[in-house]
């Protein structure tokens, strides 16, 4: 394994200690050095205190996921020391303040290099403020890894440019002091190195919500109403930040009902309207969703999933709203559900969602999640390709066409057509005078109970699902066209699975990956074709009941040979994915094998300081050998029923 440009750097501390902003700054410094980074954030549902961490994986190749292995841990409190030592690879380092009091027995330092540093002292002496201790630690990290200090200095200059020269100088000073300290005291004895690439191309480091919003903005979305809810809030906050420059109107509403209702109102006027929330807020949008479906008002809704049910795990990740969003609402109406799995797919979903919504005059749901919406990927700028953004508003009636109508009675908002799409005229034109309603209605939008009209309207609306299938993204096959093992995933598991597949093929195994971006309407035909070629299939998702597997079976009758499920709130690492795939393969004989991720026993207390990976047995470093997964971490259930859990009961 390479010792250069292949490592994970982790920062741990309390909420409010700036763990995330420091991490993000360092990440940028590495991206500017031509390295690919993947940044993962983990925080608790509290504003101060508790335990947060930020984890940056670095590589010279593109990255899509995090890793279980940590090479440098910057611990800003004692909890960070207790929570993460198992993750540190042999030869890895822990940087912490020399004055930090901690319980040595709780830190397994055997193969770890402990690096006490006068973080606060240097911060205070050189920078004049203890809060700069983070920056000292980042400097130390630069020092021990040998990373070009200028890259870091650059980011500091940019980040503080609005705060004036003095602040910049102070920060540069403390960073450099840390750098020197690391270089002088620990660098020689630290084997993992970082090296900037000369003439590095410019790259972007951003998360899926930022990319989604760029896509939405480029697609002409200029109305965004929402009620704050983690992790959905970053959408409206982003749109608000860009509002002045791009003429966007954003509105924080009194609740989620109002958020979707205002978006419906704006959409009816003719705006490309967006609302965003998380599952709990989406629960409150369901009635209005049906209204949009019935009145054929186009609309885009982002549901940024988090651990459920109810308030659940507000700051943890899960993919557990799929079954809900595909069937939310009484009665039946068309909709689409997109589940981007990477930052680039999120960008594309940003503009595609509006085209789908307007072409088929229906609500479009975009499922993201906590992990996706906070994890930073490194992209080449061309991957956010504004030139590819198309604006297709579907069948709209132009002013000229309206002018040509006989009178203000001629236009029929819900005309029955073969595609199911009725040409859409916006209110405001003298010949576009119509009503529409959530009641069943005639083509002219008036309430009706006539069975024939009802049937015609119902069928017309539902035909749009069939029509929409023509423009959704079909499942993407990654890796070799044929393979011994096919992993099936959807949405945000993309990164971990993709990396796992690469690692396994590199290790001589034969694995490919069927990734679903657009999950509804369901691509039945393509799925059947793909299944026909599979030898052994494993469906991996981040929820309890295997919602995607269930959807797949409902639509095609097909099942993967094995299922992997995780619902502890933490995303799969690359190593998790590799281990689960191998485990499933090893247990090939068990019919419909359901493997559930189990948290290592020693992983922390009720307060939630547990690492989410399974490396509790001290086997570190490679993440690629079969024996590595502790049996405690995997729980196998060999029966088909998702609820047949009796065997899984512990203690």
């Amino acid at each position, binding site marked *: 394994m390479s010792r250069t440009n292949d490592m994970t750097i982790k920062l741990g501390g309390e909420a409010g200690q700036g763990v995330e902003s420091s991490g993000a700054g360092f990440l940028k410094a590495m991206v500017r050095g031509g390295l690919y980074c993947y940044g993962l954030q983990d925080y608790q549902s509290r504003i101060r205190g508790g335990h947060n961490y930020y984890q940056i994986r670095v590589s010279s190749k593109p990255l899509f996921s995090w890793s279980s292995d940590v090479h440098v841990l910057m611990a800003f409190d004692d909890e960070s020391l207790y929570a993460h030592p198992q993750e540190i690879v042999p030869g890895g380092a822990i940087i912490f303040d020399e004055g930090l009091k901690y319980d040595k027995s709780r830190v397994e330092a055997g193969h770890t290099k402990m690096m006490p540093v006068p973080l606060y002292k240097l911060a205070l002496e050189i920078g004049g403020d203890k809060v700069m201790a983070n920056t000292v630690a980042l400097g130390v990290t630069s020092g021990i890894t040998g990373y070009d200090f200028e890259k870091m200095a650059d980011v500091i200059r940019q980040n503080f440019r609005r705060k004036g020269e003095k602040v910049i100088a102070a920060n540069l000073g403390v960073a450099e002091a840390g750098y020197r300290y690391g270089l002088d005291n620990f660098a020689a004895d630290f084997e993992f190195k970082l090296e900037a690439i000369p003439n590095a191309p410019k790259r*972007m480091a*951003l998360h899926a919500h930022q990319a989604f919003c*760029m896509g939405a*903005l*480029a697609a*002409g979305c200029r*109305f965004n109403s929402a009620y704050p809810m983690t992790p959905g809030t970053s959408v409206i906050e982003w749109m608000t930040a*860009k509002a*002045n420059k791009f*003429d*966007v*109107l954003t*509105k924080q*509403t009194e609740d989620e*009902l*109002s958020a979707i*209702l*205002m978006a*419906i*109102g*704006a959409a*009816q*006027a*003719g*705006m*490309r*309207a967006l609302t965003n929330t998380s599952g709990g807020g989406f629960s409150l949008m369901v009635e*209005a969703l*049906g209204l949009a479906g019935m*009145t054929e008002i186009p609309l885009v809704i982002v549901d940024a999933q988090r651990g459920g049910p109810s308030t659940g795990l507000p700051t943890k990740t899960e993919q557990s709203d799929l079954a809900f969003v595909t069937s939310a609402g009484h009665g039946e109406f068309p909709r689409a559900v997109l589940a981007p799995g990477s930052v680039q797919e999120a960008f594309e979903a940003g503009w595609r969602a509006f085209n789908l919504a307007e072409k088929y005059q229906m609500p479009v749901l975009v499922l993201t999640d906590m992990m996706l919406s906070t994890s930073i990927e490194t992209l080449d*700028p061309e991957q956010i390709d*504004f030139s590819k*953004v198309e*604006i*297709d*508003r579907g*069948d*709209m*009636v*132009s*002013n*000229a*066409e309206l002018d040509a109508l006989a009178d*203000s*009675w001629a236009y029929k908002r819900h005309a029955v057509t073969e595609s199911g799409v009725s040409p859409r*005229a*916006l*209110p*405001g*034109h*003298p*010949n576009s*005078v119509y*009503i*529409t*309603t*959530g*009641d069943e209605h005639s083509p002219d939008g*008036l*309430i009706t109970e006539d069975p024939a009209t009802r049937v015609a309207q119902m069928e017309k609306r539902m035909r749009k699902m069939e029509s929409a299938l023509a423009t959704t993204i079909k499942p993407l096959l990654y890796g070799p066209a044929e393979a011994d093992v096919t992993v099936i995933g959807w949405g945000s598991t993309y990164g971990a699975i993709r990396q796992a597949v690469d690692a396994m093929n590199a290790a001589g195994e034969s694995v490919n990956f069927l990734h679903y971006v657009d999950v509804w309407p369901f691509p039945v035909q393509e799925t059947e074709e793909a299944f026909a070629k599979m030898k052994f299939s494993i469906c991996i998702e981040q929820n309890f009941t295997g919602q995607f597997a269930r959807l797949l079976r409902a639509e095609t009758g097909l099942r993967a040979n094995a299922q992997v499920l995780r619902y502890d709130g933490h995303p799969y690492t690359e190593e998790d994915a590799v281990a689960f795939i191998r485990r499933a393969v090893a247990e090939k004989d068990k019919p419909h094998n359901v493997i559930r991720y189990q948290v290592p026993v020693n992983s922390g207390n009720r307060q939630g300081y547990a690492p989410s990976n399974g490396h509790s047995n001290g086997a570190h470093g490679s993440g690629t050998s079969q024996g590595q997964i502790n049996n405690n971490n995997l729980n196998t259930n060999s029966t088909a029923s998702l609820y047949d859990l009796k065997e899984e009961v512990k203690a």
Partner: protein
Amino acid sequence: MTDTAIRPDSSGLTLMTKVDMKTFQTTEKSTWCAGCGDFGILASIKQALVGLNLAPHQVMFFSGIGCGSKLPHYMHVSALNTIHGRALPVATGFKLANHNMKVVAITGDGDGYGIGMGHLAHTMRRNPDITHIVENNQVYGLTKGQYSPTSGHGYISTTSPEGSIEVSVNPLALGMAMGASFLARSFSSDPKHLASIIMKAMTHKGYALVDVLQPCVTYNHVNTNEWYKSRVYKVEDLPNYDPTNRQMAYERAQEWGDRIPMGVIYADPDRPTYEDQVPLLQKGTLLELSEKAMRKDYDYESLKNEYM
């Protein structure tokens, strides 16, 4: 189909052709009971539109669900008949998108003051330029006669056989507490008064509530036409009544019983609307502005810089 210029041609409130009562007439037969107060409200609304010289495409109606909320089906006008209790936020979204159109929301008392209470209170705080007409029959008509939030104490119904024991909603007092800028009341059996009040409400810049007393001949046998008739009086007829005087307004807003005040109870003509306070909307309607976006006429590439 064309992907350009789909913004409707809505030249503000300037009139194309002369409107009259016939302009708004439809062949759609109403489903209301004979004698229902909603007929009078429908007629008064049409009258007000004629009075304001507003053509069908210049006004967008929103309604909830209930007998009264069916009203927009019975006139020729642009409308979105939404769901129960939710007309106001939809109307607000529309208004923010296209403030060139007049926006009117029509709800029942159950709809507007009951299930819709949250939206009502917050809309009052926001003050979008929306006229809100509440057909207040003090009962749930369409679901067959349960008590409503405005039913009187002791009102007997299938769900309150021993009489309602909740304090009735006083929409005018609520409006004063929530900062509403225009609060009025009228009566479906006084269509002239009602039409004039609706005209005033629609002329007012900001959220304007018109609480319309409306007999439900089928279910409300307490608050009948006669009951209302014998109680209503007009604040216009009071000597020196000044609806811009908060204290006077507060006193009238409290009044309900043997005497029920009608007319413009409170008006603050100076309070700016929500739209007025959004700098962006001073450049034009959001819909007009978004045409530029539909042409992709923005520097999106620059967005990348902050991530590099």
